[in-house]
Every structure is written in structure tokens, then in C-alpha cells.
């Protein structure tokens, strides 16, 4: 364990500092992705024809490697955190749009009709009925997006040390100190697990209305989405 937390000075950061940077670079894009995905999913719900092209486009975006994004963006945003975060936000968007859209679509027709008949307008209905009922599906999407984002931040090490814990991994290679690489990998994994646990807890808090056993009555996480996230 000698030198496990002995961070090389050229990283200009402490271990905890790297963790903070890593979380910021990973979670802000997820939040941005969520903010963009919510209205986009509403549009996909209102105009059904919009959903297939949106899904197609986002899937193509997902297929673009992050390095390619960095190369394009670096001309505009330079070697900054923003260059790392923009592709990550796009990837989150790709995961979250179908998660929200499918979750929202899983709300039973009679629930929607009842809401409309009681005088809910489209926006109120989306915010007060569809989104809360889609919460389990949305959180399932957030779990995939968060885990993938936390792992992808490390790639930022390739563009001017913007990879947070990825920088530590690169330093391990550079100085031939495998313990630093191990530190980076373990810490990243720990962060991913902790964030996941937090999201599961959030779902519990948000959905006291779900049967505790047998969740067939509510929106199921999008299978295809989970496999897609895992493949990345």
C-alpha cells in the first residue's frame, strides 16, 4: 500500500480533489442530459411520429466514440472540463430520452383519459401524472447514464489532464506506479457503486406507491437500454 495515496505533484490535486472533479465531470452532464431529455420526451409523447427519428438520431450519436467528439470540440472549447462534459451530456441524453419516453408511455390509457377528463392540461398532466408514474423507469435510465458517465470521465485524461481519476491512471502508467492505477480503478468503481446506491434509495423515497414485491404493475426499466449501456 506504499504510496497508494501519494499523488504525483504534476496532477496539481489531492485524492479527494480528484474525486470531487470526477463527480462534477460525471454528474453535471447527467443532470444536463436529464434537463434536455424531459421536454424532448414530452414532445415525443405528444407527437408520436417524432419518437422513431429521435430514437434513431440519439442511437447514432451514441455510436460516435468519445474521442472523436473531443477532437471536434477541442477547437471550440479547448482543453477544458467542458470538452469532456459535452459528449457525456449527449450520451446521457441518449440513454434518458428513451427511458423517459417509454416510462411516460407505460402510463395506462385510462389514467391519462381520467386526468384529461378532470381538466389537466398537457403540461400539468405530464408533470403531475406521467413523470411521477414514470419515475422508476427514469431512475433506471439515470442509473445507466450515471454509471456510464462515471467510467467515461477517465477518457478526459487524453485531453490536457481533464480526466480526474483518469489522470491518476495515466500518471500510474507514466511513472510506472501500478498502485496509482489500482487506486484510480478502485475509486472510480466505488464512486459508481455509491451513486447507484443513492439512486436506488431515491427511487424508494419517490415511489412509496409501488408494490414492494412484484413490480409488474409499474414501468419496467427498458431492457434494450440496459444492454446498450452495459455494452459501452
Amino acid at each position: 500500500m506504499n504510496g497508494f495515496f501519494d499523488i504525483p505533484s504534476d496532477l496539481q490535486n489531492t485524492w479527494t480533489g480528484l474525486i470531487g472533479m470526477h463527480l462534477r465531470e460525471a454528474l453535471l452532464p447527467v443532470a444536463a442530459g436529464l434537463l434536455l431529455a424531459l421536454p424532448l420526451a414530452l414532445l415525443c409523447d405528444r407527437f408520436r411520429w417524432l419518437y422513431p427519428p429521435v430514437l434513431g438520431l440519439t442511437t447514432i450519436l451514441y455510436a460516435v466514440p468519445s474521442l472523436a467528439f473531443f477532437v471536434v470540440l477541442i477547437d471550440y472549447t479547448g482543453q477544458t472540463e467542458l470538452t469532456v462534459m459535452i459528449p457525456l451530456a449527449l450520451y446521457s441524453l441518449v440513454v434518458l430520452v428513451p427511458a423517459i419516453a417509454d416510462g411516460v408511455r407505460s402510463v395506462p390509457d385510462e389514467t391519462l383519459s381520467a386526468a384529461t377528463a378532470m381538466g389537466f392540461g398537457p403540461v400539468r398532466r405530464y408533470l403531475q401524472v406521467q413523470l411521477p408514474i414514470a419515475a422508476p423507469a427514469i431512475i433506471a435510465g439515470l442509473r445507466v447514464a450515471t454509471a456510464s458517465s462515471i467510467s467515461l470521465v477517465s477518457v478526459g485524461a487524453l485531453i490536457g489532464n481533464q480526466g480526474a481519476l483518469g489522470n491518476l491512471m495515466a500518471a500510474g502508467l507514466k511513472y510506472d506506479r501500478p498502485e496509482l492505477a489500482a487506486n484510480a480503478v478502485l475509486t472510480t468503481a466505488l464512486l459508481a457503486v455509491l451513486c447507484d446506491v443513492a439512486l436506488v434509495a431515491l427511487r424508494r423515497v419517490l415511489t412509496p406507491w409501488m408494490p414492494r414485491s412484484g413490480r409488474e404493475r409499474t414501468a419496467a426499466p427498458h431492457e434494450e437500454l440496459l444492454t446498450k449501456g452495459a455494452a459501452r
Partner: protein
Amino acid sequence: MIRIDSVTKRYPDGTVAVDRLSLEIPDRSITVLVGPSGCGKTTTLRMINRMVEPTEGTILLDGEDVQHQPVTTLRRNMGYVIQNAGLFQHRTIADNIATVPRMLGWGKQRARERAAELMERVGLDASLARRYPYQLSGGQQQRVGVARALAADPPVLLMDEPFSAVDPVVRKGLQDELLRLQDELGKTIVFVTHDIDEAIRLGTMVAVLREGGRLAQYAPPAELLSNPADAFVEDFLGADRGIRRLSFYTSDALELTTDAVVPADAPAERLAAVEAPYLLVTDVDGRPRGWRERGSDGDRLLSYGRPFRPGVDSLRAALDCAVLSPTGWAVAVDADGKVTGVVSQQTIGEAIRAAHTHAEPDAGEDPARGEDEKVAG
């Protein structure tokens, strides 16, 4: 009053869901729209609260065109009950019921009190208020649906196949409950169903629609059963409409006889004096025990089937009792279950003929038909 005036709904692809439909829906009564699937009944209902906009024609609510009213105001003044209840699964029962009051700006406390009051009214236990919909049975959820629709005390209630997803026993309970509620509240209810029995049971007026959204007949249920407008309505009413029509005739005019009713401890001379082939034996309290064949020994009693209550039950119930009884005689009881007399199928048949003659002087064919089916039943 809701007045539907030559309303047509045509979809862009050319399908006509509702075709020049005109109906006058009276206040404070249950008007049922019934018909096979694709007859436009739900579309018609949804045009009343503008969830569907008509292509042609107008719908007037108390003389005012619904098209000219703000859609949210219109809807908040009309309760809506849907199949499977359509409850908000993420809200508690009390919050579900309080939805419209809260939207109308009622305070939390007042809305909660109103929810509690309505739960009691529709027969839900107060302890369910904090529960979530998944914790309730289908029948309970449907009661919540009715309570939610009544929450802001709207004058109009639109009900779209509200009871069709629950089992027959629960459905009957909910229908009884609706009739009881309607007695108390006197709403203008428009009720959609594909079940003709439900329509006849609940409706003050029944509109039978046929495929393509055309009105086949609009009449009170008794008239529908006695005078179907055409072959379609007759077919839709089913083979036993003669029997079902009897539901609308009271049994209180039936002539009961007590000659054949004997207590279990009656002396032998009393039994010997009876001329009927069967004797109805009662216990000491006067409740029926069973039929005894004349001349047989006293231990072997035949089941007396199900008794009916004169005045409370219809002629249909009385006839059913007689048909079910192995002796062909129906047993009449009072509220305490004590025998008030017995009546034969023949006497019931005469009462049916009399009722038909009374209901429609020129009906020549119907009573005979009723007789035929009585034998078949």
C-alpha cells in the same frame, strides 16, 4: 339538460364514429348509451366533455354550446368515471379523490375533509385514505373512481363502462351502490356500457346505438323490452327479453293462497283437509321448511327453492321462484322470512298477462311469448 343535436364525428381516414346523432338527456336521471363495440358510444360520451370534438352538430349543456366554454372549466364541472378506475397510482386514495377540489383551489384541509366524506358515501372504510391504489381490490378502486368524480359536486357525471372490468358479483354491488347514490344525489348521469342487462338495470332512458354510430332506439327500458324498434334492437336485447321485461312489473298484485301452508306440528285432520297435491310445511316461527307431497310421510320434504317478497321483488323474481320450485309453486315471505302464502305458475302467468294488457292494450303476441319462455326457463 344535455342536448345532442345531429352530431357527427368523422375521422380524417373517413370512418364515421357517430352519425347524425340527436338525443335529449334529461336532468337528474341515468341515461345509458348501449351498443356493440364500434357503435360510437364512448365517442359520444367524450364529445360531451370535449375530449373528442364533433365534426358536425352541437352539444348543448343547459342551453349553452359546450364548444363555447373553456375546456378545463367544462371538464371540472363534469365528473368522469372510466373502466379500471384510471386512478393515479402514485397518489393516495384521499389525494386521488381530492384531485379536482385541489385544482379548483380548495385548501388542503377542506379537500381532505371532502375526500373523507365521499369515501364514506361510496362505502369505503376511512382507514383506506392513506393507502395507494395497488393496495385496493378492483371493486374498491372503482368506488374511489366514483368518489373522485363526485369530489367537486359536479351536476353531470359521465361514466364510461365503469363496471365492466370487475367480476359479476362486485359489479352488481357497484350497480346497486350507484342507484342508491343517485337516489341521494340526483346527478345527470350519462352511462356507457356494452352490457344490455346493465343498461336495463340502471337506465331511466336507454339509447341503443348500432355500428357506424347511428341511433337505433331511444326509450325507457320497459318500452325497449316490449317494443323493440327493429330486428337489430330485438337481437341486441337477447332471446329472453320477455322474461327480463317482467323485472318492471311488481309482484304485489299476485293472489297468494295460504290453504296449502301448514305448520310442522299441525294435526293430521288439518293435513287431510288440504286438497292441493303439495303442502308447504313451516317451522314454529312460520318460516318455510319444505314441500311435502300429499299422502307421503312427514319426514321427506322437497326443497322450496328461493322465496320471493311480494311488492319488493318483481314478477320476474316470483316466476323464477316458481320455476325453481320442484312443485311449480313459488313461496312468498315477508321481511322476517315468514311465509305469507304460496302462488302457482299458472297464477303468475295470469298476472303476467294482466300486466301486459295493462301496459299495452294492443299487445297480442307478447304474453304468449312470455309463457313459452317460462316453460323453457
